């Protein structure tokens, strides 16, 4: 039972790593900047499919990791500066606009790549099982967890210690006040949007190397990102980490112990959080 318990724990924690990676780009945009970006899921899928293209032409997984993340970041920049900027601050228009983008891009992907499920192949060195003393564990899951921790630390340091981070935190609290102080707040928000695009791109390629992707996967990604961010708390980075961990562990334990009730526990938790802590586990009132 001890080995089993350890396995369930590890499964939950590494799954949380994947969830954190996927949701962190979303929380930057939705949680911090309060831009309702429903195109998040399609960014993920776009990155995975771009990765497939790059992999087919170059054969290098690392190139597709960096390449598609950069392209998705560029797409984020273009979408922000041409479309999103015009509706900034209007939740409903943002919602409809980004949902529209996600449908259009989703259909383009379906038309070009077809409906067949695809996957990326991570380098062999990651996909070997690793021996952890009493049990063997997939190396790639540990790699994903490592990347997630790295992204988390990076974002935390960025927000806490850099000038950009200070501007963002101040801007989230009172955008007009920051602008009055002569700081180019718009530029800072564009930077965050592009950064979020880049991280989502990373998660798309890494996620696409771990799980199969196909048209429609974007809705899953978006749903899970929403759950993680809502449970964790809007606008809080540590909240996303906590949210991912809660969701990951609930998923892992319920699947093992009461598999038929996985969805019940997942959405039950979401409902409880919304009912008793509407701002999430670590969110703050505004």
């Amino acid at each position, binding site marked *: 039972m001890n080995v089993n318990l350890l396995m*369930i724990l590890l499964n939950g924690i590494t799954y949380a790593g994947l969830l954190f990676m996927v949701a962190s780009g979303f929380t930057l945009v939705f949680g911090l900047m309060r831009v309702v970006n*429903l195109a998040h899921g399609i960014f993920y899928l776009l990155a995975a499919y771009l990765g497939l293209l790059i992999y087919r032409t170059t054969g290098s997984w690392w190139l597709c990791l960096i390449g598609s993340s950069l392209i998705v970041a560029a797409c984020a920049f273009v979408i922000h500066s041409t479309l999103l900027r015009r509706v900034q601050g209007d939740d409903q228009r943002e919602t409809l606009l980004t949902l529209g983008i996600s449908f259009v891009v989703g259909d383009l992907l379906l038309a070009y790549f077809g409906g067949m499920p695809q996957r990326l192949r991570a380098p062999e060195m990651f996909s070997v099982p690793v021996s952890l003393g009493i049990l*063997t564990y997939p190396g*790639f899951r540990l790699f994903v967890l490592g990347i997630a921790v790295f992204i988390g630390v990076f974002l935390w340091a960025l927000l806490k210690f850099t000038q950009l981070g200070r501007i963002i935190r101040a801007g989230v609290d009172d955008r007009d006040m920051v602008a009055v102080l002569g700081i180019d707040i718009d530029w800072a928000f564009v930077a965050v949007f592009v950064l979020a695009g880049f991280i989502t791109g990373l998660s798309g390629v890494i996620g696409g190397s771990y799980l199969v992707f196909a048209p*429609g996967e974007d*809705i899953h990604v978006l*749903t899970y990102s929403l759950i993680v961010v809502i449970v964790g708390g809007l606008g809080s980075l540590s909240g996303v980490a906590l949210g991912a961990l809660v969701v990951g562990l609930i998923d892992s334990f319920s699947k093992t112990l009461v598999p038929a009730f*996985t969805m019940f526990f997942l959405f039950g938790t979401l409902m409880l959080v919304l009912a008793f802590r509407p701002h999430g586990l670590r969110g703050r009132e505004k």
Partner: protein
Amino acid sequence: MKRPLLFVVVLVVIAGLAFPAGGREAAAPEGDVLKVGVLAPLTGVFAGGGWLIVEGVKLAFEGVDYQVGGRPVQLFIEDTGARPEMAIQKTQRLVEREGVQLIIGPLSGGEGMAMKEFADRIPNVTVVVAGAASEDITMRGIKPNVFRTSYSGAQVMFPFGEYAYNELGMRQVAVIASDYAFPHSQVGGFLSTFLLAGGEVPARIWVPFGGPVDFSSYIAQIPRDIDGLFVGLGGTDAINFVQQFKEFGLLGQIPILGGSIFVDPVVLSQVGEDLIGVKAGSHYAQELPYPEFRAFEEAFFARNQMPTSLWAADYFVATQAVIAALEEVGGRIEDQAGFREALRNVELDTPRGPFRFDEFQNVVLTARITEVRKIGDQYRNIVIKNVPDQDQFGPFDPDWYQAQPPFGRDTPTLPMLRQAVFR
């Protein structure tokens, strides 16, 4: 923030639910048009194989130039997303708005059961179930207007359970499968003969269908000291499972026995190298000794650059049966009684082999045991054993079989099987 958040959640839910695409109608041909509805999953878990299904139907109609009994055929292809409620909704639309009197489909077990219930409300329509394999569609009370040309989950699995015990020498086999009617039936068929032969099943692990794709927690539950693992998964689930099974270092440690849709070409195209040597129970393979098979395979490959799949073949065969019956009645689908009588008596040589119906309007077919091999640069299922003339009751007496509850998560059990009445 409260209201926008709610708005967002509602929108996402709507986006998720409303996705299955609308109907695609070919341009209406001139003359006394014969309308045929086709139900297939073009989105969702089975989207990968969904478009191949439609190819199967089109190929069969192209073979007769879209002319049956002197009438031009018009296809109405509808996406169900493999969801029962959507299958019903689309059927209702086809029947009420388009006046369709013949439906080919649906694919998945849940959809098939929903269609059986719905059949009473559309007595002037014949449903030819072309893919769904949950067994109750054609037993425990049949509907006069529901036929099945595909198979029942257990039908092709009875020989496989015996084979695993006798020929593969397996004694302990665990099961991991999707938690719905079709895998219940496949596992039930396999275990019926495996348990009767003397085998044991130390664990039955059921995975929610269409749920999350992280299999690690299910893989953790697989006992390590077993002779084999029966995998009743399909589509993207199967691919994800194989990849993660490998990453946990279990591939090659525990031999895999496959359900009928586990070793589909879509799955093999992604993880074929990991599945070499895997045996499965089915009624189809990528190499069969019939001229009809070769012709179908070649025509299909020319159009799609892919080997034929079980699903494409099943829909092709369904369409062939429909065409044969329609020719018999001169294309008069409006005479439903006559059409059904003709359909009941259809006997055909198909890419799957000889085809006929039993008295329950379910197909009698050749069950097969297949093995994945690498041929050229493709991974294919090769037949290693044929069991001709299999119907949906296997070795059991039809009356006894239908008196038992349908297979579920914990059935069959050995005590229940010990009471069995054989033919």
